[in-house]
């Protein structure tokens, strides 16, 4: 217990105290360059009344929802391949899959800017090949650019839990299914997929939660249509200089994430009960 205390105590202080103050500040209001420290729910009321906040929150949730679905679907076969078809050097495969994830997030987003840009790799490449006349404008500064970049950046977060849950599946169950006459598709639907569901759930949450609050990718690649709630939070603490509103948005963002994740976990539990 004593041993755990430095790390745990640090986390406790470093997480709870700032959260408490954030919560407190969300009840204040901005006044000129200072704060009016009388407690009020005014910020929360504004949040409900002005459509911009709700719209941005909704967009953030839908963007990270698409990112989550795309990433899990794209990563599942990859994790499946390493779990079932790689017999030697699994470790090397896993290292290579996760390696880019460890390098600077900012630089990976920057790389996508170089790829998708107006005069970027795709546009200038296609143009010098003579395939297109003018640059494709929808590539950069759009929601799809944000989804592509986020899905790429968080792939490792999906692959590892998927891999772990697939790897754990008892191979004799698959043999039994084959012996009892199941084809590959039936076997996958009846054994592999249900048993890997915990991995799918943790992969989804591990991607959905952090991407909802992202602001670097939308700032560099989103343009006006791709802005997310994180950008607004950042602006409240920066140019807009309304810290209490920023604090309110951060609190509401956490609540939204908690609610959506809760509903998701509940739904998957129901689905699982029906399967079994």
């Amino acid at each position, binding site marked *: *217990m004593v*041993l*755990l*205390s430095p*790390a*745990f105590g*640090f*986390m*406790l202080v*470093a*997480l709870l105290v*700032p959260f408490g*103050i*954030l919560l407190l*500040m969300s009840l204040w209001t901005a006044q000129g360059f200072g704060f009016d420290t009388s407690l009020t729910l005014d910020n929360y009321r504004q949040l409900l009344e002005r459509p911009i906040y709700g719209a941005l929150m909704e967009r953030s949730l839908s963007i990270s929802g698409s990112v989550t679905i795309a990433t899990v679907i794209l990563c599942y*076969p*990859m994790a499946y*391949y*390493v779990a079932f*078809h790689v017999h030697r050097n699994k*470790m090397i495969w*896993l290292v290579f*899959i*996760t*390696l*880019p994830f460890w*390098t*600077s*997030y*900012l*630089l*990976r987003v*920057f*790389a*996508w800017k170089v790829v998708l*840009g107006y*005069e970027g790799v795709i546009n200038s490449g296609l143009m*010098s090949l003579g395939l297109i006349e003018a640059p494709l404008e929808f590539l950069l500064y759009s929601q799809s650019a944000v989804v592509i970049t986020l899905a*790429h950046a968080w792939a490792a977060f999906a692959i*590892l*839990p998927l891999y*772990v849950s697939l*790897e754990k599946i008892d*191979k004799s169950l698959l043999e039994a299914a*084959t012996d009892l006459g199941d084809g*590959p598709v039936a*076997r996958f639907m009846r054994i592999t997929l249900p048993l890997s569901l915990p991995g799918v759930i943790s992969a989804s949450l591990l991607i959905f*939660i952090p*991407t909802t*609050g*992202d602001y*670097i990718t939308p700032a*560099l690649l989103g343009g006006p249509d791709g802005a997310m709630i994180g950008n607004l939070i*950042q602006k409240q*603490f920066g140019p807009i200089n309304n810290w209490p509103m*920023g*604090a309110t948005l*951060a609190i509401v*963002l*956490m609540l939204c994430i908690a609610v959506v994740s809760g509903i998701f976990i509940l739904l998957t539990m129901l689905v699982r009960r029906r399967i079994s």
Partner: protein
Amino acid sequence: MSGRGFNKPSRSLRLYSLIFLFVLYVPVLFLPLFSFNDSIYVKFPLTGFTFEWYGELFEREPVWNALMNSLKVGISVSVLSTVMGIFAAKAITRYRFPGRGPAVGFIMLPLVVPLIIFGVALLVLFSRMGVSLSLYTVAMGHLIVCLPFSVATLIPRFEGFDKSVEEASSDLGENAFWTFWRVTLPMVFPGVVASLILTFTVSFDEFIMAFFLSGSEPTLPMYIWGQLRFPKEFPSILALSSIIIAVSFLLIFISQWINRGAHVTSVKGD
């Protein structure tokens, strides 16, 4: 085992995996490609080969300052978080106590909660406490980001060796400190080195916390962010980014290699 279908080689799945890896790496590899291109425009066709952008970096004082800032923060954060991680991992693996699961989950929290929330929460805390933003505040933020990685890297190491060796040491009369120093530490050493390298790299590359918590001294990612506004700076930023990515790849590869065997369980987290 083989011949039953589910683990016979599948050519299409293999092809998919190779394409997957290709797509994973290609965007990042465009940075070094264009950093050697002899044009200030980042576009095809490539015009010629040059080291000019790299040479130019060496003469920039702000780059060197930012590098020094990043090194200072990265080294202190990696040492601090690894030391705390060693204690935490030992406590988690050796002792059963009530609330152990939630405590571990709590330490791992920063892995999943959007970092912007931690960033602004700490910013508010520091400003209310009257602490001015500096490299210390950045390091504090990075410590939060890095501690889960340390703990996750070290737990499998502590789980991987036999507790009775430690007991034997104390039976033979070593006190707790010497048992730790002469028995435990050498056994978990690969994990410690891996944690040091890993957390250094995470801190060195970290941007979100630094964005909210930097004062007047930028770290390297902050410097890059500042330069992204100027299109004419693109080539030198490409060169700088390429160096950072190459160094990060190398460091992470070394840390994973040293810690091989404990890899899969380590990132599972929760």
